[in-house]
């Protein structure tokens, strides 16, 4: 029984992920700055390091520390790669104690989203080539994750962002392929196609001379191309809305008369889906373009867990049988050993509720065209944007915003746009009043 006791004690030690869960729950109210400070005070065990680095990297990006954010996310990415091999010791510990003794390695969506967030980190620091590297890596990862008809790990947000990065590089063939894949993924999931993706597909299929394909899109979307003129510039807005739900533990405990004790199975679950998206809109003159969801991370997280569930349940059942044998053996020795074994085996049964839980609930996009000398506004945040030509001589400006603060990033980078919310204003924003 000694190894079981040892492992059980080891599993109780690491409550860092519970602290991280708490911070993630409070993030919409506390904001990224305070949450980051609190997160940095936590020293997680090795097995929670990936989760910790992913969360910290994203918070650093939200707080304006793009280089620091990239460093953390890059470290998480490398750790995730090294953890793809199956660990003999962790498997043994998970089979006998609980799943939290495995090193957290991220879900299929996490494995792709780490590239997406890194790409944001490079792009809004002005490094298009760095963002392009991440998009190529995301492409390889999605290829590796694709299995048959499953959409597991296939992210429309990654495909759309890749399309934008290719457009910035004037690699229009590759951009078209990426937008097409984003469309296919969303259609496969029966999700509404965001207006920004519709415009990208219509405009690019037309300019690249794929007129049959253009007609198909025009029919499917019920709209025509919106090609910018020489005097127009294109704004593309990426918006991170909310904070994704935390996993919870679901526990089933039954009384086993044979051992006169309890058998417990703990499984992770998500709370019921209650996400109500809030949107931003870009206004220029009389034109107003609202952001639409390109990635519903609330749904991706639940899909990833659903895919894992059968394996987790089988493992939990096998573990319950192993623990039952331990309890039975102890009960046969004497009553006290039996009671002690029951306490330890039931208490050591914990669901693995770790996740990248500071991700947004959704990634949203908007794409609009304005005259180059006209200003624009992000309506809900009451942020005035300078005229297009004040920011760039090029044809695109990219914007990045989150619901957690009023920091706005631009590509090309400019110090022209930034406004911080007061704590009171942030609470209003969280309440959806903008």
């Amino acid at each position, binding site marked *: 029984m000694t190894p079981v006791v040892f492992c059980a004690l080891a599993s109780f030690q690491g409550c860092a992920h519970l602290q991280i869960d708490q911070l993630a729950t409070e993030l919409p109210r506390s904001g990224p700055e305070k949450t980051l400070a609190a997160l940095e005070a936590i020293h997680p065990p090795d097995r929670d390091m990936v989760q910790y680095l992913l969360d910290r990297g994203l918070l650093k990006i939200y707080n304006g520390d793009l280089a620091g954010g990239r460093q953390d996310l890059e470290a998480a990415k*490398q750790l995730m790669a090294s953890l793809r*091999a199956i660990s*003999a*010791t962790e498997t043994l510990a998970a089979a006998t104690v609980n799943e939290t003794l495995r090193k957290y390695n991220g879900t299929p969506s996490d494995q792709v989203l780490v590239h997406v967030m890194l790409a944001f980190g490079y792009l809004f620091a002005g490094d298009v*080539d760095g963002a392009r590297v991440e998009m190529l890596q995301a492409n*390889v990862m999605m290829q*590796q994750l694709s299995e048959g008809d499953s959409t597991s790990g296939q992210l429309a947000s990654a495909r759309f962002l890749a399309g934008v990065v290719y457009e910035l590089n004037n690699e229009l063939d590759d951009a078209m392929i990426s937008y097409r894949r984003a469309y296919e993924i969303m259609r496969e999931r029966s999700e509404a196609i965001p207006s920004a993706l519709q415009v990208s597909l219509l405009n690019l299929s037309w300019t690249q001379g794929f007129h049959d394909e253009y007609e198909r899109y025009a029919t499917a979307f019920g709209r025509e191309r919106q090609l910018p003129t020489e005097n127009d510039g294109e704004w593309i807005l990426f918006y991170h809305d909310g904070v994704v739900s935390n996993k919870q533990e679901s526990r089933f405990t039954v009384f086993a008369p044979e051992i006169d004790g309890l058998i417990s199975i703990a499984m992770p679950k998500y709370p019921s889906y209650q996400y109500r998206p809030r949107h931003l809109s870009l206004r220029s003159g009389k034109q107003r373009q609202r952001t639409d969801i390109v990635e519903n991370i609330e749904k991706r997280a639940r899909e990833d867990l659903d895919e894992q569930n059968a394996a987790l349940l089988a493992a939990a059942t096998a573990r319950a049988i192993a623990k039952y044998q331990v309890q039975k053996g102890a009960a046969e020795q004497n009553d006290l050993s039996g009671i002690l074994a029951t306490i330890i085996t039931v208490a050591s049964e914990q669901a693995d509720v770790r996740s990248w839980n500071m991700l947004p609930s959704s990634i949203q996009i908007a794409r609009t065209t304005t005259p180059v000398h006209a200003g624009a506004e992000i309506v809900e945040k009451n942020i005035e944007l300078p005229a297009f030509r004040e920011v760039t001589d090029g044809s695109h400006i990219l914007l990045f915003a989150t619901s957690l603060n009023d920091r706005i990033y631009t590509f090309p980078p400019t110090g022209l746009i930034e406004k911080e919310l007061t704590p009171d204003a942030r609470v209003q924003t969280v309440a959806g009043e903008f």
Partner: protein
Amino acid sequence: MKILILLVAALSIAACGTSVERVDEDSTIDLSGAWNDTDSRLVAEEMILDVLSRPWILEHSGRTGKRPAVIVGTVRNLSHEHINTSTFVAEMERELVNSGRVDFVASRDERGEIRDERIDQDLNATEATRNAAGQELGADFMLQGQINTIVDAEGKEQVRYYQVDLTLIAMSDNRKVWIGQKKLKKFIKNPKIRF
């Protein structure tokens, strides 16, 4: 028994410590399979050998009676990895300058600082030591290039193909006087089991 436990504990602590070993700079150590110093060195060596053996230098010297002056333009990383292209470009620059057959002029980024210093000299240096503006050596050729990769991955295995293309372009008429290419191919197998 206690001694045995202490011994095991001591050994396990010792095994966790960081170890550092000096190795030869030319030794090949592949850890992750990603682009590393060896790849950078192989590319630089190949490119230097090639660029020095081609007729563009003699042709330019014969025509003008001067060594060609080269400026490094952009070497873009279009690969799947974050590669610092300046390492092999700097190595090429060093070898070419040391060969005595080519001059390199400062790149756009480097020039800014030098010009600032020249303006400062104009105000603060003695006339005898002052360097005048407008005396810079104009480049005859610009070196540009890119790194591309093709990655094929299946499960724990990956084939990575790198292609480095460098081009030397005459500033006077946009002629491409030299095109260098180096290809590398790696087969990477990641472990299926770890401790």
